[in-house]
């Protein structure tokens, strides 16, 4: 059955692998995917651990509907403590890895400890192997993937892995799938690198049993033109948005002068080195501006003459970041850590501060943060008719947030801020899909409670890192202060600080989120996560 998938606890310190089934009770409490992922992370990560140390834990999860016929259900969630922000980072990876890992018999992989030598994990039909990755360590992403494919003599394997930037602990290194999808600019690649894991390789040929196959096949016919149109719309809109960002992140910059070819090449290079093109282009813009202004000087070790008009120097700079040479070593620490060295005033020239908060899809800020923005719609709490108010000190959340969390728990890909594209009431259809695929019966109110619980879990992790609502504010330069860069357009409009503060405090009031409330035993009981209470009490 779709419920018989297991959890593999991989201890790299002792090279020990424990495989345990997932209790049905967990399914009823967190469904799967992002929910169980957050729960496992909270359970196993020691509080206030070093994000790049061996205490950090990586949880790779697939959703309850992963590998089934539910559209867009191929989404892998990778969670860990972010080395960039020191908060929870949740990475959504598109691609066929999620389905493959389910066919290999697993729903969750919990990776603890730290390997002494470079390794890769090979997951195949209910077994996990830790293999030597000496030959592929240091190689570019696609080359490493190709080499592993040849080594295993299997064309059908699916992989997620890091490039040289992850190995060198660049704090915005990403994960890349073998289909070239990348995600994780909050630095998940560096966490993999710190544990000496190059890739996670997966191949599965196990049956995924479906409770009611005929109904699942009919479901498509009946709802054709409804559910799937919406999901298609979601995909296309996401792609368009990504394209827009890709163009936007380069258009107003210095890099435009290099011409299109070098832009494409530099983007390709960035991906090959395992970094996020968006984060890197932001960093490069910043660095070039600082070079011009004289805040940043090429030191002796780095005699390169940075000239944005020379495409070679762009490529060189990208390599310098990935291999942490010279100025690249400072930039690889991330903007805030770099600013601590260069001087905080330099952040005024950091363009991504302004627009990343509008379009950041994986940051650990409050959910649906995009809706707090002037351009986003107002977050009015939706209390559906005939349903009792949601209990628990996680408070009530909007229907959009509920839908997003439930879709994520089921393993369905959602771009943040675009859930509203799901017209009508997706919960009803999801309940049917869960019933047909797994045989589990949920009602709408139960799903809403699960969503609240999962949000509270993520919040709890961040509270463990001593986060208060003040941390959700951005540096002053993201507000009315002129950014020092001459840019216009909706992306660059200044945000009114007062309005923003008002919205954030309203956001917290509605959710009844505060550090005190969430850390009371009663709340844990209400949220039915009392087994976490001893580990989090402090």
């Amino acid at each position, binding site marked *: 059955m779709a419920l018989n998938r297991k959890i593999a606890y991989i201890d790299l310190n002792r090279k020990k692998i424990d495989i345990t089934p997932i209790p049905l009770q967990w399914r009823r409490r967190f469904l799967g995917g992002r929910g169980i992922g957050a729960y496992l992370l909270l359970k196993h990560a020691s509080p206030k651990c070093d994000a790049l140390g061996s205490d950090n834990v990586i949880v790779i999860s697939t959703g309850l509907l992963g590998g089934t*016929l539910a559209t867009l259900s191929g989404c892998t969630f990778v969670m860990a403590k972010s080395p960039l922000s020191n908060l929870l980072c949740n990475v959504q990876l598109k691609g*066929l890895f999620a389905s493959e890992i389910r066919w290999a018999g697993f729903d969750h992989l919990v990776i603890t400890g730290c390997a002494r030598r470079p390794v890769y994990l090979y997951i195949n039909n209910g077994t996990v192997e830790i293999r030597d990755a000496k030959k592929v360590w240091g190689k570019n992403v696609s080359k490493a993937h190709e080499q592993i494919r040849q080594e295993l003599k299997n064309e059908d394997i699916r992989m997620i892995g890091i490039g040289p930037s992850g190995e060198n602990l660049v704090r915005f290194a990403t994960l890349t799938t*073998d289909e070239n999808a990348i995600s994780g600019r909050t630095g998940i690649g560096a966490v993999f690198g710190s544990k000496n894991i190059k890739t996670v390789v997966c191949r599965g040929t*196990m049956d995924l049993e479906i409770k009611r196959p005929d109904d*699942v*096949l009919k479901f*498509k016919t009946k709802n054709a033109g409804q559910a799937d149109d919406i999901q298609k719309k979601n995909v296309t809109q996401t792609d368009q948005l990504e394209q827009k960002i890709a163009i936007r992140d380069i258009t107003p910059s210095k890099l435009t002068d290099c011409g299109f070819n070098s832009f494409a090449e530099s983007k390709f290079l960035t991906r090959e080195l395992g970094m996020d093109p968006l984060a890197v282009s932001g960093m490069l813009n910043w660095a070039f501006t600082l070079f011009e202004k004289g805040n940043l000087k090429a030191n002796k070790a780095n005699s390169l003459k940075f000239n944005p008009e020379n495409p070679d120097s762009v490529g060189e700079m990208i390599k310098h970041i990935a291999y942490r040479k010279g100025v690249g070593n400072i930039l690889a620490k991330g903007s805030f850590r770099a600013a601590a060295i260069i001087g905080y005033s330099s952040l005024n020239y950091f363009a991504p501060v302004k627009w990343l908060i509008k379009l950041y899809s994986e940051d650990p800020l409050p959910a649906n943060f995009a809706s707090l923005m002037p351009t986003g719609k107002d977050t009015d709490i939706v209390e559906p008719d005939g349903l009792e108010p949601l209990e628990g000190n996680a408070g009530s959340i909007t229907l959009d947030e509920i839908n997003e969390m439930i879709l994520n728990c089921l393993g369905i890909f959602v771009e943040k801020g675009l859930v509203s594209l799901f017209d009508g009431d997706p919960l009803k259809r999801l309940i049917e899909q869960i019933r047909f695929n797994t045989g589990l019966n949920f009602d709408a109110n139960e799903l809403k409670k699960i969503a609240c619980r999962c949000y509270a879990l993520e919040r709890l992790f961040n509270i463990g890192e001593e986060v208060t609502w003040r941390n959700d504010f951005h540096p002053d330069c993201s507000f009315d202060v002129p950014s020092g860069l001459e840019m216009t357009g909706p992306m660059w409009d200044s945000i009114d600080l007062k309005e923003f503060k008002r919205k954030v405090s309203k956001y917290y009031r509605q959710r009844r989120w505060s550090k005190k409330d969430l850390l009371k035993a009663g709340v844990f009981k209400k949220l039915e996560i009392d087994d976490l209470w001893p580990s989090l009490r402090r």
Partner: protein
Amino acid sequence: MTSRVLVADLKKCTGCKQCELACSLKQTGVINPVKSCIHIIDWNHEGIFLPVFCQQCEDAPCMAVCPKDAIYRDIKLERMVINYDLCVACRMCVFTCPFGALGFDQEKAKVLKCDLCDGDPQCVKFCDTDALSYLDSSVFQYQTTSKTALMLKSATDRKFGHTSPPVGR
């Protein structure tokens, strides 16, 4: 009733593999792409995806090679069908198929072969990008023909100075 054929448009296939899942679910009741009768061969980095499935050959090698005469032609749906009462699961048909389109379920010792889902192919239903279609066998090539004709027409127009933009028929 005119016969219909399963046609794949390579340009539209995105390699999502929903067809594989739907096929295996319909054929075996479980989701397992290995047990599917349609397979997507992918070259991810080049963005090329090639659906491979049974072509329901007119002079079928699988039928010719079957030692028990278990494979026969269903004229109504223009398909090759396996009579599982006669089949001894010797896998000769699997080895002989020039497309490698036949599969074998080791657990049930059963040859897996596309039966066009008795005239309602699930792979077509689940193909979100319409890369797979089930078309009338007498006209399916006209799509390509008319596309080529249109290209030829616009080329001629350019050559002889007609400025009207090419319009579909």
